[in-house]
C-alpha cells in the first residue's frame, strides 16, 4: 500500500528564530531541519542541551510555531495540536486533583467522549501501561515512574498515530528507567504506532530506536542520522551485546566531539 509508505512526519528546512527583544540579539533556535519519519518507526532525537530537540518535538505537536521551511504530519502542514498526535511530557504534567483513571481519560474527556466509554478505554490503557490497581490513586501518591505510566496511559487513550515523547524518563532513576524502556517497547510493538523520542541518554536512544537523530547546537540542526541495526525484540540482553556497546560509544564519541569543539558558550 502506498498510503502506509507515505511519511508520517516530514520536515523540510524547518527553522525557528526568536526575534531580538530586551536588548538581546535574535536567536536562531533551529535551522534547516530535514527529517522524514515513516509509519511505525521509533526515532530518537539526541544532542547537547540547547540543540532544540525539545523545541522541534513541540513544533511537531503544534505547540510552538515554526517560521521557516515546511513541516507536515500525515501530509498536512502543522498549524496546531491535533488528535493524531499525543505528547508524553518530561515532568508528567498530570492534573494533581484528578485520580489516575481521570488523568488517563483526560484527553478523551476533552473530546467529549462519554464517561463510561472513556473510563473503559482509560482502564485498558492503564493496564497496558502496567498500573492496574492504581486507578483511584492520586498522582502525588505515586512514584515518578508510576506517574509517567499515567502519562503514557493518557497518550495511549486518545489512540494517536504518533507518540511524541519529551525526555519522558529523564527524571527517573536508572533501574526504573530500564524497566520503563522495556515496557515502552512492549507497548510500541503492540500498537505499531510511530514514536519520536527526545532524550539525552545515549544508551536509551540506542536501545529504543530504529534511528537516532544526532543534533548539534547554534543553530540547532541535524548533524547525523544513525541507523540502529540491532535486532528486535530488544531485551535486557541487548544491552550487553557488542553491537549495542559499539553503537552507544559511537553516539557518545559524536556528542563528545560536539561538546568539546563548541565555542565557549554564553550559557544556554
Amino acid at each position, binding site marked *: 500500500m502506498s498510503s502506509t509508505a507515505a511519511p508520517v512526519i516530514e520536515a523540510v528546512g524547518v527553522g525557528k528564530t526568536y526575534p531580538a527583544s530586551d536588548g538581546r540579539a535574535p536567536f536562531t533556535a533551529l535551522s534547516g531541519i530535514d527529517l522524514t519519519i515513516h509509519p511505525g518507526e521509533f526515532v530518537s532525537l539526541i544532542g547537547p542541551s540547547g540543540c532544540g530537540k525539545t523545541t522541534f518535538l513541540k513544533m511537531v505537536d503544534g505547540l510552538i510555531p515554526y517560521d521557516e521551511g515546511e513541516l507536515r504530519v500525515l501530509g498536512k502542514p502543522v498549524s496546531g495540536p491535533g488528535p493524531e498526535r499525543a505528547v508524553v511530557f518530561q515532568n508528567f504534567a498530570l492534573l494533581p486533583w484528578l485520580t489516575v483513571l481521570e488523568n488517563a481519560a483526560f484527553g478523551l474527556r476533552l473530546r467529549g467522549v462519554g464517561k463510561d466509554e472513556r473510563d473503559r478505554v482509560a482502564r485498558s490503557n492503564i493496564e497496558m501501561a502496567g498500573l492496574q490497581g492504581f*486507578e*483511584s490513586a492520586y498522582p502525588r*501518591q505515586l512514584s515518578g515512574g508510576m506517574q509517567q505510566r499515567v502519562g503514557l496511559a493518557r497518550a495511549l487513550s486518545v489512540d494517536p498515530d504518533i507518540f511524541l515523547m519529551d525526555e519522558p524518563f529523564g527524571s527517573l532513576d536508572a533501574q526504573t528507567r530500564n524497566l520503563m524502556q522495556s515496557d515502552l517497547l512492549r507497548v510500541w510493538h503492540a500498537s505499531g504506532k510511530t514514536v519520536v523520542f527526545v532524550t539525552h541518554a545515549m544508551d536509551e536512544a540506542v536501545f529504543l530506536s530504529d534511528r537516532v537523530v544526532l543534533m548539534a547546537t547554534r543553530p540547532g540542526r541535524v548533524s547525523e542520522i544513525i541507523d540502529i541495526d540491532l535486532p528486535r525484540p530488544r531485551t535486557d540482553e541487548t544491552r550487553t551485546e557488542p553491537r549495542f556497546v559499539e553503537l552507544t560509544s559511537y553516539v557518545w564519541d559524536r556528542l563528545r566531539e560536539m561538546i568539546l569543539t563548541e565555542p565557549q558558550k554564553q550559557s544556554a
Partner: protein
Amino acid sequence: MDPEDSGRHARLVAAQVQRRPAPSRERWLKPVLRLGILALLIGGWQLIGNDEIQLAMPTFTRTMAALFDMLSAGFAEDSLLEGLVITNQALVGGFLLALAVSLPLGIAMGSSRGVANIATPYLTVLLAAPMIALVPIVQVVLGLTLAARIAVVFLFSFIYMTINTMVGVQEVAPDLKEMGRSFGATRWQMLRMVTFPAAVPAIMAGIRLGLGRAIIGMIIAELSLIGAGIGSLILEYQVRFQPAYVFGIVLLAVLEGVLLMELARRVEGRFARWKGVEGVE
C-alpha cells in the same frame, strides 16, 4: 499482580500518605496548651473585672449572666438573636456580592495581562485606602440602609478575594496548560478543567481572608451606620450603663467570627487536599 491485591495496595499507599500521625506528645500538648491559655485569659478577666459597681468593667461571670439573659429572650423583637440575624444579613449579602464580583474579575485579571493592567491601579488604591474612611462616603450615598451595610462588607472583603484569585490563576503551572493545549482543550475547557481547579486552593485561601475581612466590615458597618442589628443594641445598653450586656454582645460577635473562620479553614483544607496541604493548623 492480582488486580484486587494491587488495588488494596494502592489504597494502603493512599492511607499512608494521607494520614501521617503527629508524634503522640505533640498531639495532646497542643490542645492542652490552647485550653490552658484560654483558662488563663478568662481567669485574668475575672480578676480584673469588678461587679461591685455596675458601671465598672464586668467580670467574666457577670458578662456570661448578661449574655444568657439576652439569649433567653429568644428571637423576640429587639432581642439579641434577632439583632444578630439582622446584622448577618449584611454579612451574607455583602460577602456573596463580593464573591460574585471577585471570582470573574480575578479570573479575568489572571488570564489577561490587559485586564490586569487596567484593574490593578484601582485595586491598589482600595487596598491602600483605610476602609473605615470610606464608610462616611457610603453613608452619604446609600444612607442608613441595609444596602449601605452590604456595601461596606463588600468593600472590606472583595479586594483580597480578587487578588488571590488573580494570583492563583496566574500561577497555574505552565506545563499543565501546555498539556491541555496539546490534548486539544478549547479556551473554555482549559479554564474549567485546568486553570480553575489548579487555582482553587489559592482562591479558597482568598475566600477565607475575605470572610475575615467581611466580618470586620460587618461589625464596623453595624457600629458606624447604626443598623437595626447588634449595633443599635450595643448603643442602647451603653446608654443604659449596662457594660456587662455590651461585653456579652461583643463576645457573641467574636465567637461567631471565630466559628466562621474555623469553618472556612476546614473548607479550604478540603479543597487543597490534593496539594498535600491540610490547611494551616
